């Protein structure tokens, strides 16, 4: 019987220095898949490589030598001695491998549980595998099932519902204040990776304009150009507060850049339209007392982290529900895989033909009362002989061993042609 083996490493087992040595580019994956497929022990192959993980999934008759093959493939292909990465590798077989694939696809195994990118990355890797013809009946089924499980977990649990990064948490809050962010003006004070990321996310929500203010005006100009906004001088910030709705501040200033009194005066000109201050600077830029003013909301970096921690906890609770869905799917997959073996297929096929033949015989004999019981037995014998002869050739073919042919594909085809599987299982996708 064909089994599934998986070897891989992820952010938990391997440090980034190792992961970057072993990461595969799409071209490398293509040639790698061709190579793996050409090995006699391997009948199907799939390779996933992201910044957090490398996973090789194989369908094989001989699991232990397939694992050896995969290890030596990494070592040779990447030019690294295998003892350098051996300890970081995990190996799963059969059910455990299936479970791992489902968990990865559903983002239960991700660094940030519930982040959605991994599913897209697996889909791309799967496209590569199908384009190289390296995946067959078993891995196709496995991956389709994985997509199905991931989608189900996403819709049935709240695993991806709450923001778990600073910039997304800030946007979530902004949406609770302003509703949609269309047409809102963003003021960026200072610069920095996190602040710029937040601005990029905001632009995606169709905010109207970006105003950038930096201590060095040139740097401000640069950023403004990048965000298609406009740059102002550092001392113009207070004036800009009359138009800005969302203020992201991230300067290295030791003192508050915006004081309570300044904002209070501005609110009159703004006619109390709300402002949301996102202060990600340490030490803080925005006087926290501003939060006590009406229609103004100030969140500093710790407040945002508080939001994230809460959301991470929520996701963990949801992940438990996700694990249950995975377990259920693993059992279903195992049942399908077991049926895909030679003996159950032949048994199933025989039963199907016998059922039809005997039912029809029964119907015919019922209307022929003149036949003796001896005649009936003769018909019965004939029917059985016919069934035996029909099944002879397929049985011999399926039981033949040795040659490197894709038995799973034949088995799968027979299952489909004669509808041997219970219908519930085949309609899910």
């Amino acid at each position, binding site marked *: 019987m064909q089994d599934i083996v998986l070897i891989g490493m992820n952010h938990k087992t391997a440090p980034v220095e190792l992961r970057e040595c072993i990461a595969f580019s799409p071209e490398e994956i293509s040639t790698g898949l061709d190579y793996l497929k050409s090995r006699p022990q391997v009948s199907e192959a799939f390779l996933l490589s992201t910044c957090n993980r490398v996973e090789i999934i194989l369908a094989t008759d001989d699991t232990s030598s397939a694992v050896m093959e995969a290890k030596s493939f990494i070592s040779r292909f990447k030019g690294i001695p295998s003892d350098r990465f051996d300890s970081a590798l995990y190996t799963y077989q059969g059910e455990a491998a299936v479970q791992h694939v489902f968990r990865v696809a559903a983002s239960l195994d991700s660094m940030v549980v519930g982040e959605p990118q991994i599913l897209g990355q697996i889909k791309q890797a799967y496209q590569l595998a199908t384009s190289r013809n390296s995946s067959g009946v078993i891995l196709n089924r496995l991956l389709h099932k994985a997509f199905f499980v991931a989608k189900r977990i996403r819709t049935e649990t709240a695993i991806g519902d709450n923001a778990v990064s600073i910039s997304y948490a800030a946007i979530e*809050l902004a949406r*609770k*204040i*302003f509703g949609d962010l269309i047409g809102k003006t963003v003021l960026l004070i200072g610069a920095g990776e996190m602040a710029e990321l937040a601005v990029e996310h905001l632009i995606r929500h169709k905010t109207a304009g970006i105003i950038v203010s930096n201590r060095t005006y040139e740097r401000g100009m640069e950023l403004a150009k990048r965000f298609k906004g406009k740059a102002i001088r550092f001392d113009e910030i207070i004036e800009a507060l009359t138009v800005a709705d969302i203020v992201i501040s991230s300067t290295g200033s030791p003192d508050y850049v915006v004081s309570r009194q300044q904002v209070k005066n501005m609110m009159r000109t*703004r*006619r*109390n339209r709300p402002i949301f201050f996102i202060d990600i600077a340490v030490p803080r830029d925005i006087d926290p007392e501003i939060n006590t003013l*009406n*229609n103004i909301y100030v969140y500093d970096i710790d407040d945002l982290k508080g939001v994230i921690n*809460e959301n991470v906890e929520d996701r963990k609770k949801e992940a438990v529900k996700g694990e249950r869905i995975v377990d259920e799917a693993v059992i279903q997959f195992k049942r399908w895989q077991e049926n895909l073996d030679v003996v159950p297929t032949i048994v199933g096929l025989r039963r199907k033909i016998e059922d039809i033949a005997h039912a029809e015989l029964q119907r015919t004999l019922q209307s022929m009362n003149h036949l003796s019981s001896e005649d009936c037995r003769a018909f019965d014998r004939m029917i059985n002989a016919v069934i035996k002869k029909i099944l002879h050739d397929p049985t011999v073919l399926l039981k033949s061993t040795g040659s490197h042919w894709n038995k799973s594909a034949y088995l799968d085809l027979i299952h489909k042609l004669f509808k041997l599987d219970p219908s519930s299982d085949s309609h899910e996708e």
Partner: protein
Amino acid sequence: MEILTNLTILMYTFGTAGYFAYLFAQKEYLQKTGYGLLFAGFISHTAFIVLDFHHSGHLPAVNMNEALLMAAWAIVCVFLWVHVRYRLKILGVYAAPLAAIVMVMAVQFSREPGQSQTIFNSFWFVVHILGIFIGEAAFALACGLGILYLIQEHAIKSKSRGFFYKRLPSLELLDYTGYGCIIIGFIMLTIGLITGFVYAESLWGRLWTWDPKEVWSVVSWLTYAALLHQRMTVGWRGKKSAVWAIIGFLLILFTFFGVNLLLKGHHQDFTRF
């Protein structure tokens, strides 16, 4: 007739259950169910009022029972408008139980349509009643929106978030919808007051009689006028606007119940039971 009121109460109660289930479970179909039930209740409620009008020859708002039935009808009417206009669904957790409670209160009072006085049978009277009731229902919803706003504002300001944070819409939508309700309420109340004066003039030959209900209605009208004025000129919004919407509605409640129960006047009959 009785069966229609009972059916309406049943629908509003189940609608309330639907909205509360939606509040907790956050499933869209629960909200749709609640809305559907409320809508069905509204249809049977409207049928009841139309039949009653036809039967007695005047708009059923001349005693406590009828006045409360009318108030519940107006609340649901305005809520359905808010739902369609602003897509603000969660307000159902306020409007549905409010309508159900007012209905249940209404049927506690005796249903004695009794004297069909011709003075209740005029165009001005109908417009006066509809204007006042729809206006006050809009203020009732503005008050509910004010409460929801304060809850959500507290969740964001105090950084504690919690149960309601996820379940309530944005502050902007709550504020904007409340503003819309106050505008509608103000327009309707204005129409109701003016037609009331015209009606009084035609009936008694006097516009203004220092009836306590008249006085307190004008006080509430002035309160909302001040709120709208402040919003348009200096941008009173958010928390301030929410608090004033609640205060305004308390005044309305006093005008509706308090004046009739504590003070005397020519509106007194309408709360007789």
